[in-house]
């Protein structure tokens, strides 16, 4: 653990976090939100609702599920249930990012704010950069990064909404393809110990298997069962633990 926990957060890292949004992960995310904007248009939902989802929900799979529920006219309760199932995954991601960035004994409001920004991309980026950031600067960095990403993605949503239909099919599909390609390579690049490799392999095998039978539970089941098994099997795997 680095940094001084006696003093508070170092807010000068807010700007550095914001600048980090202009990076490969930010570009990949931009492509995904272009796709979200295009989806809004094709479902006949006004742009303003999509922008509101970007700012206030900030979790793309949930946003897509919500859009799907709206366009199929599902009852509110069923739609909310489907969205909340996709959001359970955010809990462990928030725990992981905050465990390496929060300062004990400090005010907790920055944690509540940072938590709103945390989803898969910010978790991956935190894994990439936390080692080079002092402890007191990490939470401000997440908040700066999140604020910049949300701003950029509302722009991407609007752009995608307006550009739909102009782009050729293979090119548009390639933009979407950046997301799985980036997540897979970021996982591989960030793997440090045997447990990581086991978790990756088990998740990739269990996910599709569960998906065939219970499509809405595939991620949770693969995460809990695959991750749990990887944790038990990989306990003596060596490598350094996340600090």
């Amino acid at each position, binding site marked *: 653990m680095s940094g001084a926990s006696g003093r508070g957060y170092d807010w000068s890292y807010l700007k550095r976090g914001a600048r980090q949004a202009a990076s*490969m992960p930010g570009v990949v995310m931009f492509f995904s939100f272009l*796709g979200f904007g295009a*989806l809004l248009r094709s479902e006949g939902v006004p742009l303003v*609702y999509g922008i509101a*989802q970007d700012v*206030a929900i*900030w*979790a793309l*799979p*949930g*946003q897509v599920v919500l859009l799907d529920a709206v366009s199929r*006219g599902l009852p*509110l309760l069923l*739609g*909310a249930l489907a969205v*909340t199932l996709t*959001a*359970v*995954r*955010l*809990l*462990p*991601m*928030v*725990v*992981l990012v905050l*465990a*390496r960035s929060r300062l*004990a004994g400090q005010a907790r409001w920055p*944690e*509540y704010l940072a*938590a709103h920004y945390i989803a898969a991309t910010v978790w991956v980026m935190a894994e990439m950069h936390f080692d080079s950031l002092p402890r007191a600067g990490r939470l401000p960095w997440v908040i700066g990064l999140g604020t910049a990403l949300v701003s950029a993605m509302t722009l991407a949503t609007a752009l995608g909404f307006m550009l739909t239909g102009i782009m050729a099919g*293979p090119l*548009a*599909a*390639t*933009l979407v*393809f950046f997301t*799985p*390609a980036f*997540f897979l*390579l970021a*996982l*591989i*690049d960030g793997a440090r110990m045997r*447990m990581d490799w*086991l*978790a*990756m392999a088990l*998740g*990739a*095998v269990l*996910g*599709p298997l569960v998906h065939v039978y219970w499509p809405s539970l595939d*991620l949770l089941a693969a*995460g809990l069962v*695959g*991750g749990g098994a*990887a944790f038990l099997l990989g306990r003596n795997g060596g490598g350094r633990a*996340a600090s």
Partner: protein
Amino acid sequence: MSVSSPSLWLVVLAGVLVTYVWRLAGVLLVSRIDPDGPALRLVRAVVTALVAALVARMLLFPSGLLAGTPLPARLGAVLFGVAVWRFSGRMLEMAVAAGASMFLALQMLLP
């Protein structure tokens, strides 16, 4: 559009609440967890498996724009990206770009 605007705002609000509640639970939980203990390692394994499952789902059972692309193009491009990462000395950005370029090329070449 079949839904009236007030009810659409209600749907968005519901989506906001049922999403943030899990993040809130994370904030409340993290102060009770030992950051160097086994619990956090378990959480890390769960997230890793979950994101891997998400990738596998997007590649094997895609929705939206990817649904219309050939499976061999998706898998071939991802394998190419991993190979580039491995043999370029772990250059992440280059590997992602190479995988995406290969995907574009394979879409044109494959039926």
